[in-house]
């Protein structure tokens, strides 16, 4: 009971007494990449929900008020930041769930397990460097929640 009250206070306090300090430390947001693992093969890493290359003016205007997919993508970004913090297992479960839900059944057909990794991209001179900062275990598809 005391734990539940402490958790409720922890959730409510930052909303009711905001610091307006949205970012404690400015660090690059990790990108999420996933791969499906079959019996004998593992696919290449695929970027999860890559940004669209270009958008028309009409699309941009529509997205100002209606963009459900982007809302969910932002949530996966915040989950990816939480994976490496306390309570990371919870964020990892949700992230597996969100990636799995995004994949069509035809893609999942020959796969046994799903794995994701988090990659930061930063500029080093003229080049973009990529660094893997986290790699999940290979999780059997039947263990992915909501599968």
């Amino acid at each position, binding site marked *: 009971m005391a734990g539940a009250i402490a958790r409720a206070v922890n*959730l409510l306090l930052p909303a009711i007494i905001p610091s307006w300090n949205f970012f404690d430390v400015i660090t690059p947001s990790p990108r999420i990449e996933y791969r499906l693992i079959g019996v004998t093969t593992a696919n290449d890493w695929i970027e999860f929900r890559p940004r669209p290359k270009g958008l028309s003016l009409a699309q941009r205007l529509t997205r100002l008020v209606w963009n459900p997919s982007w*809302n*969910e993508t932002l949530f996966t970004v915040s989950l990816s930041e939480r994976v490496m913090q306390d309570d990371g297992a919870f964020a990892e479960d949700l992230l597996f769930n969100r990636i799995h839900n995004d994949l069509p059944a035809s893609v999942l057909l020959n796969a046994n397990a799903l794995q994701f990794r988090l990659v930061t991209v930063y500029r080093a001179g003229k080049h973009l460097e990529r660094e893997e900062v986290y790699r999940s275990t290979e999780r059997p598809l039947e263990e992915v929640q909501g599968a």
Partner: protein
Amino acid sequence: MTYEFAVHLTEVLLGLALFIASVEHLAARSTKEQVIYGARATASIWLMTGLFSLIALPLLWALSFAALWLFRGPYNGGSDRMAMLILTCLLLTKLAPTTQLKELAFGYLSLQVILSYSFRGG
């Protein structure tokens, strides 16, 4: 602008924002989320139109809290926190026993909104 009109306008704008965000969320597949966000979409229409005005605010507050609990934090980052702040202050404007306390709650909300804009949104 009178105090009553400002409170009403806040309710309508918040109702609209929560309605759009809730309907967007209904694209999510989890049943638990569908229930929470379906109810939130309905209650936000009540808040905008003044229908069932007595239960709309407490219900929206409870649903927003349920979402915070479910995801162990905000789903839509800062906007969920802002919605929670506005809902709490609006609820206090209804529940506070004296006019002074009601105005204090709404004044606190105004202060926070101005701070958020001048520090982060300006």
